[in-house]
């Protein structure tokens, strides 16, 4: 993993960072690189409410805000920004305004690397809209001033259309931190986590590969 000046992570939902990129984040933090995480929403529309339900529609965002802070703490992220958009509405926002908001953060923290979703290949409309806004923002910068963009893609057609990921980070050194970050988002990940930790214990090859290797596609202009 290259040593970066500053890493900016931009995702729409608390927990988007956990599965796919938290090992990469933890590694950068360990290397002494400052990491800013800009999270657009509080996951207000999350559907996992437990059975019997542990919360209601109105209190879920409060729970998820605390979980997000805890995940950031576990990963060692010093600069967590909650941008105050609402879950599932990102794609309906004014695209220019959203891109400018992100550009302000880029100009402020001056990252050498930005991690976000690959627009069109990230399944959830908020993911695609967030990735598109980041790329629109970076696109406003002079080509030689642009930070590197590492995009997360997982749609069914992503490998077919984008080719294989060109960046694969093995995060074995920080796997415990990664699992703790996933666990921090308890309201969304508890059920999945139980199943996953069991599979890791049994060295299930598919889960091991997924947890240990974080894949990114470098955005090509």
């Amino acid at each position, binding site marked *: 993993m290259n040593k970066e000046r500053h890493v900016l992570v931009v995702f729409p939902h608390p927990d988007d960072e956990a599965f796919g990129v938290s090992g990469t984040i933890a590694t950068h933090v360990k290397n002494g690189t400052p990491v800013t995480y800009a999270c657009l929403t509080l996951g207000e529309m999350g559907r996992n409410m437990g*059975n019997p*339900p542990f919360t*209601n529609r*109105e209190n879920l965002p409060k729970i998820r805000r605390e979980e997000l802070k805890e995940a950031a703490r576990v990963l060692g992220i010093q600069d967590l920004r909650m941008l105050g958009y609402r879950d*599932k509405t990102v794609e309906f926002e004014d695209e220019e305004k959203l891109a400018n908001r992100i550009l302000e953060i880029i100009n402020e923290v001056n990252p050498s690397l930005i991690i976000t979703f690959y627009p069109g290949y990230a*399944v959830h409309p908020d993911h695609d809209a967030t990735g598109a806004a980041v790329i629109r923002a970076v696109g406003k910068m002079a080509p030689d001033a642009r930070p590197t963009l590492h995009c997360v893609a997982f749609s069914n057609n992503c490998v077919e259309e984008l080719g294989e990921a060109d960046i694969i980070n093995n995060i074995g050194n920080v796997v415990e931190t990664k699992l703790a970050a996933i666990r921090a988002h308890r309201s969304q990940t508890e059920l999945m986590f139980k199943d996953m930790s069991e599979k890791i214990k049994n060295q299930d090859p598919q889960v091991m590969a997924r947890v240990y290797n974080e894949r990114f596609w470098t955005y090509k202009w």
Partner: protein
Amino acid sequence: MEVVEIQKVQEVINSFANKDVYIHLETTNGAYASHFNQSFFSAGAYIRNALVRYELGKITGNGPYRVGLKINLGWIYAEGITHYEIDEQGRLLLAGHDYDGKLAVALEISATPFE
């Protein structure tokens, strides 16, 4: 949230009748439904802080329940309601959880706007 007690919910619905109230109504399959199952047709709807007045509101069915509100010139309704809560602000929060506990539908009534 508690499992719906039909009489209690009906009383609260009645208490909001003929007043200005704010409505939150949503239904969803989750954003990943068609990702995991491509033959699944995903649909949902959402409205937050609709300001209405209803003359009549009713909860019916044998559970999961249906709730209908007759508003000036129209209707609001939700199907699949299983749970309710009257929160610390006196708002009526109704929710329908599917067999995995996932929120499938929500209908909420409040005298003040939702956050």
